[in-house]
């Protein structure tokens, strides 16, 4: 049993990391009061930008192309997020519908270009992110073995983003203002904070991170862009509720989803899971998510102004 846990943990972590970054992306947007149901779309944009960059640059740059891909994905996500911000912040549109539009636009647009480029609509990347034993960290007993041996560098990146986000949100000027915008924009406005600018910033960070998460998913697990992120963006959205809009909560929630999905994926090779019907295992992550939502939606700590467009005129 213990051995199995040690064995599957790296897989679970690999799955957790992109999910964590995407849900952190969601955190910025939602903490500012803008629902971001478009996380899935931003992931797709990130996967597309990443796959395109990596496959173009890999012949010349080898491994560095991976990092260039992640960078391009982040930038693409930030730019694409302007669409969502424009709709939700400037035009006070229904944020859920705008997010749905984002998802559909992302899928359709990137597939359109992918078809033009490759003919098939899929972009396979020639190289993937390598796994390393991370210096020093891998030598820590137990945790080192589970988290940092044969790990992706992106694991470290994600943990850094997590730590920075936690500090940013709770200890800095930006964080205090961000939270104020999501809790009571009228109070923030009265205090001289530019709600529109804060929400634009938050949505842009959100898109950038979600796209980065998509690109990491691409270079560590998926290996190709094919027009979808397999519902991972929605799982990240659920993680946001499950983790109660707190950075550490998100870590716990995404780790949980990572484990659930990994168990479903590796069940065939685990003798004591082999007799469980496929359908139970395959739907396991989604059923578990529903159950988690059942448990956590009642006492919701959602930002109070989440989903409400800010209308300066209504005081």
């Amino acid at each position, binding site marked *: 049993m213990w051995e199995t846990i040690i064995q599957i943990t790296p897989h679970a972590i690999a799955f957790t990391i992109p999910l964590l970054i995407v849900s952190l992306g969601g955190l910025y947007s939602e903490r500012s009061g803008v629902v971001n149901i478009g996380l899935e779309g931003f992931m797709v944009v990130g996967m597309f930008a990443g796959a395109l960059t990596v496959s173009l640059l890999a012949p010349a740059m080898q491994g560095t192309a991976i990092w260039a891909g992640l960078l391009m994905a982040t930038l693409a996500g930030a730019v694409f997020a302007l669409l969502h911000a424009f709709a939700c912040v400037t*035009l006070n549109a229904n944020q859920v519908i705008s997010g749905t539009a984002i998802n559909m636009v992302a899928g359709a647009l990137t597939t359109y270009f992918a078809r033009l480029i490759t003919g098939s609509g899929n972009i396979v990347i020639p190289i993937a992110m390598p796994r390393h034993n991370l210096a020093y960290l891998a030598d820590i007993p137990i945790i080192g073995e589970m988290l940092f041996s044969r790990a992706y560098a992106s694991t470290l990146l994600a943990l850094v983003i997590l730590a920075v986000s936690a500090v940013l949100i709770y200890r800095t000027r930006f964080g205090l203002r961000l939270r104020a915008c999501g809790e009571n924009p009228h109070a923030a406005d009265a205090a001289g904070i530019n709600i529109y600018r804060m929400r634009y910033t938050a949505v842009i960070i959100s898109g950038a991170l979600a796209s980065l998460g998509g690109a990491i998913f691409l270079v560590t697990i998926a290996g190709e862009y094919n027009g979808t992120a397999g519902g991972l963006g929605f799982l990240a959205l659920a993680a946001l509720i499950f983790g109660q809009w707190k950075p550490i909560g998100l870590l716990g929630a995404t780790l949980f989803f990572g484990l659930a999905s990994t168990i479903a994926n590796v069940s065939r090779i685990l003798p004591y899971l082999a007799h469980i019907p496929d359908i139970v295992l395959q739907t396991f992550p989604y059923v578990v998510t529903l159950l988690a939502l059942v448990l956590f939606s009642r006492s919701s700590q959602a930002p109070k102004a989440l989903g409400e467009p800010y209308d300066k005129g209504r005081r």
Partner: protein
Amino acid sequence: MKLRLSKTSAVSLGAIGLGLFAGALLMAVTGSNPLAGFWHLFRGGLMNIERFGNSLASSTTLIFTGLSVAFAFKTGLFNIGASGQMLMGGLLASAVGLYVPLARPLLLLAMFLAASVGGGAWGALPGWLKVKFNVHEVVSTIMMNWIAFWTVSYVVPRYLRDVFLETQSRRIPAAASLRTEWLTELFRGSYINLGLVLAIAAVAVVAFLLERTVLGYELKAVGHNKHAAQAAGIDINRRMVASMAIAGALAGLGGFVFYAGYSVNIQIGVLPAQGFDGIAVALLAASSPWGVWAAATFFGILHTGKGFMTAMTGIPPTIADAIIATIIYFAATGVLIENVWDRYSKRHEQRAARRRRVDLEQGVK
């Protein structure tokens, strides 16, 4: 006689215009001629009776999923799970079609009921989770989509599989198909089928339900202001579950007409895009049932024409999805169009007022 346009239809038409413009831009940027692209896109959907039949057949499913989303909207709920409800409706209808030996009318009736039950249950559960546990229906219906996806992947290869391909079900017998000879012949071999008749009937029924019945009044009351509805003694929890169940049943029927009408079997590994396109249809229709019919027909033409356009011009068929997605975006940001509309009509009114004043003054003289 002046043609008067309401604000909502102005928003819808504006969104279509902007969506088509975005499509044109996309074609131009990628080096194609937009005019040729659109010419072939619409020709592909309309150029002969067979293709027009296919456009109508495409629209059939969209009418149901559009009605589904619109119906939930009326009660203030966002049903993003029409895809999953479609799958479950289609799965149950196909199972009945393959296994139940009944005469055709009875068999179709049984499939109709099975599809409603499958989709209805798939919609009712998120509704129940919402009222009971405050689970947001957007997230739960998405999860239900994936659960449906894997359920189909599990059931079809084991119980309904095709002789040659594991990834799809057997072809349903002619008795279980909504395709019918006279319609097929009338439209020169197109996919058009009895589903369209069902769909138009559904539009009428939903319109009647919402406008004339007590249930419709209650559902709209809950949708506009659930607090006031509750204070007036309406059981808002039951109405919300009912609304989601009906929405799910409508999407389930979309599965019925798609898998047993447009198609002849059900495939695994596909989350049907019609479920999401239903959102576009509902938005464009501003949730009005008759508007759903119109919007679905428009999208049906786009979907049928895109293959022809690709064959003639090399523009990828996903342009149609890009146009639809852009239309959703602009329908969501309807304020933009509304503002233009308001500014225009205000100027118009001022001009009219000035004219009246001038008339009056001249009259005095």
